[in-house]
């Protein structure tokens, strides 16, 4: 029995959570001797203050949304795919690899870019399949497998940048030699965002939404995630569904890595994943693992990231302040959800 008032109570608790998160972040800023209102104003101006700024937000939004989309699949299957960071990185490495091999060939740049995307997807799936293999056949918890593979991915990136793929002369932390402009994803004039990135991100979340909300695949995946034993007894091939979840998440993470290379950095850099994997986990938790609100919440988080970039310049505050706010927000929402349930149960 759902009472009509419960929707409003839920909303009230969520608003309370946001207030709590803002209060906590403000407290941190006051301790750092900064004016919170000034900081929030700077974040708003820095994210939506101009068309240029907003296009930068979209640049961050697409890979974040892709990572979140992939994670929704593994969460539905009851898996904590913490290895998503490494899967993004491998996507970027495979895309870079494909472009390095093909850049001097006679293929048209458009085709090379498409191959770059596909390679990225493949790289992400490959990295996810290692975690899946360890989990399904070795009994290694996917959290540990994923964590391990994240370290390997970082080490692999550094080795490539300073080793085989180093710039002519000497390798540097600034990454590999940038690709020629023909291999960059075309952007809107004067802006950094590419319409093609937007298409990939939006189509991605739409596919996940339809898959999880309306299909047998989504329902069976949910069954596997909630009770693997009962799902097996009902005749659902649980091993295959776990494989599918890992591979699908790897595919989306790989695409995020490909977007980072093709649309943003045009080369491989050491921290190519930009933490979007972990941030994606926060987004997924905040939206309670349901795809409906993925796009707007990811956009909000991207705006916080971009908006805080200029904090060090204007206010001598570190730009990781956005991370404080994002983390506080997720924890406050989870906390308030727990409080709400306790109160409702008491009644």
């Amino acid at each position, binding site marked *: 029995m759902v009472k009509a008032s419960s929707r409003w109570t839920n909303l009230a608790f969520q608003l309370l959570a946001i207030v709590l998160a803002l209060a906590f972040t403000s407290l941190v800023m006051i301790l750092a001797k900064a004016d919170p209102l000034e900081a929030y104003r700077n974040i708003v101006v820095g994210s939506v203050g101009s068309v240029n700024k907003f296009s930068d937000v979209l640049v961050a939004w697409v890979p974040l949304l892709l990572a979140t989309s992939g994670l929704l699949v593994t969460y539905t299957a009851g898996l904590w795919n913490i290895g998503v960071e490494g899967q993004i990185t491998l996507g970027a490495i495979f895309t870079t690899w494909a472009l390095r091999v093909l850049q001097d060939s006679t293929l048209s740049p458009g085709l090379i870019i498409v191959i770059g995307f596909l390679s990225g997807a493949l790289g992400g799936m490959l990295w996810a399949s290692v975690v899946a293999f360890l989990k399904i056949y070795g009994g290694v918890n996917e959290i540990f497998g994923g964590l391990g593979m994240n370290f390997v991915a970082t080490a692999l990136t550094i080795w490539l940048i300073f080793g085989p793929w180093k710039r002519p002369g000497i390798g540097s932390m600034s990454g590999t030699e940038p690709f020629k402009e023909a291999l960059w994803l075309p952007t809107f004039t004067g802006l950094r965002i590419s319409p093609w990135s937007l298409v990939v991100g939006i189509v991605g979340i739409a596919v996940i939404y339809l898959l999880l909300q309306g*299909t047998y*695949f989504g*329902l069976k995946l949910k069954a596997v995630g909630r*009770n693997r034993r*009962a799902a*097996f007894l*009902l005749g659902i091939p649980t091993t295959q569904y776990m494989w599918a979840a890992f591979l699908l998440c790897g595919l989306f993470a790989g695409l995020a890595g490909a977007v980072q290379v093709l649309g943003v950095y045009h080369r491989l850099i050491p921290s190519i994943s930009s933490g979007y994997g972990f941030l994606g986990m926060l987004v997924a938790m905040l939206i309670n693992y349901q795809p409906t609100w993925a796009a707007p919440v990811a956009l909000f988080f991207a705006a916080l990231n971009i908006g805080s970039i200029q904090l060090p310049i204007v206010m001598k505050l570190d730009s990781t302040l956005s991370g404080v706010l994002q983390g506080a927000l997720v924890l406050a929402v989870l906390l308030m959800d727990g409080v709400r349930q306790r109160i409702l149960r008491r009644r």
Partner: protein
Amino acid sequence: MNVELINIHKWFGPVHANDGITLHIPSGVIQGLLGENGAGKSTLMKILSGFYQADEGEIRLDGKPVKIESPADAIRHGVGMLHQDPLDFPPMRVVDNLLIGHRGGLFPNRAEAIRAMQDLQARFGFNIDPYAYVDTLTVGERQQLEIMRLLWLGARVLILDEPTTGISANQKEKLFATLRALAEQGMTVIFVSHKLEEVEELCHRVAVLRQGRLVGEVEPPYRTEDLVKLMFGKVVVPEDKTHFDSKEPLFRLENLSIEDYRLQIRDVTLTVHRGEVIGLAGMEGSGQRQFLQACAGIIRPVAGDIYLDGKRLTGRPYRDFLEAGITYVPAARLEEGLIPGLTLTEHFVLAEPQEGFVVNRQKAAALTTQRIADFSIKGMPTSTVESLSGGNQQRALLAMLRQPLNLLLLEHPTRGLDIESTIWIWGKLKERCRQGTAIIFTSADLEEILHYSDRILVFFGGKVSQPIEATKTSVEELGQLIGGKGF
């Protein structure tokens, strides 16, 4: 200790689980608490033992009003509850289980605990090794351990919630003797059950609950019809013994042998006919579960063959068994049968064969409404299965079975259900038999096995008896076999 419950009210959302219950239980009495599933017995007892707090009402112990806020609080006041499933720590030793919850000191005093335990064992004739691990004990012994623990912690009121589920007849006798001894020593015993015979045999007085209300208090001599009428508000009659055994062979086991780390089942040969019902009797853990799972294709036999309609299924994957129309329904409803978090609609969609890629919502909604009506499930299509009561979960499980089926393997299909639900569920199952489905089921209730089976297999420590005609045996004979006599 005198227990007084005065005008107790408890709501769960819109459900009025306890509706103004007033009950006075003097010390030295075994008080029965009778009622069908969902009548509010467990809720009332959980309020008395501190698991829940009453929304309204008062509890008095020896005339003194008390506020019981947690189970720890309850035991401080001298109220201890024995739960339906033992709430102990299987990987730990008996003596450490005894010490858990005991107050005093930084270092546990094992010597004292063992001394106290031996006193209690002598008092009740128990025989448990204090250094044994709890997971090596039988359910009955774990109950004995729990009783000793509560007594040692100072319980003077002992609540037992359906304590006879899952223990043998011998252990039941012992439990009853213990409870009688406790009552003679001035303890207050509250015995919660839906089994009429047990309540009639044991209790000095009986209170009957129906739909959250106290509908009657009865003293011996009991008349069964009166109790049934109080429980259900009407007279319930078991349906006729209809049998649909067609003598047409359907399922055949040849020299089937099953092994797992605990027991071995050797050389079972059996032919099951269409429409036939085979009951598996035996103590819990004698191999019935392994036998059912081997028939279902979930565990592989080490030797022998399985045939359905002449087709050899031995060694084939579980999915092939499913497709051949063999279905296994486990006893642990929420652990193995249903998927917590998913709605009734989602369950019915999952149980049906997949059509296309996208779920047809309208069709699913229609199917769900139909099934809910057919199986009288008290729940909405959007209800998650864990929000349903045990009886309704069992109905949902049966509603998920595909049509048609060749062989239905049921593990404790009516465990924990009241008479009315049991009769109703068997009505549904017999309907399947009429359509040609064969049923193999386990039960701890020999009456149920005798009443509904055509033939019976008795299990004892992995040994399996020859099939026994249900009409040619009795509860007494089966009881002997279960105890290992005649093997």
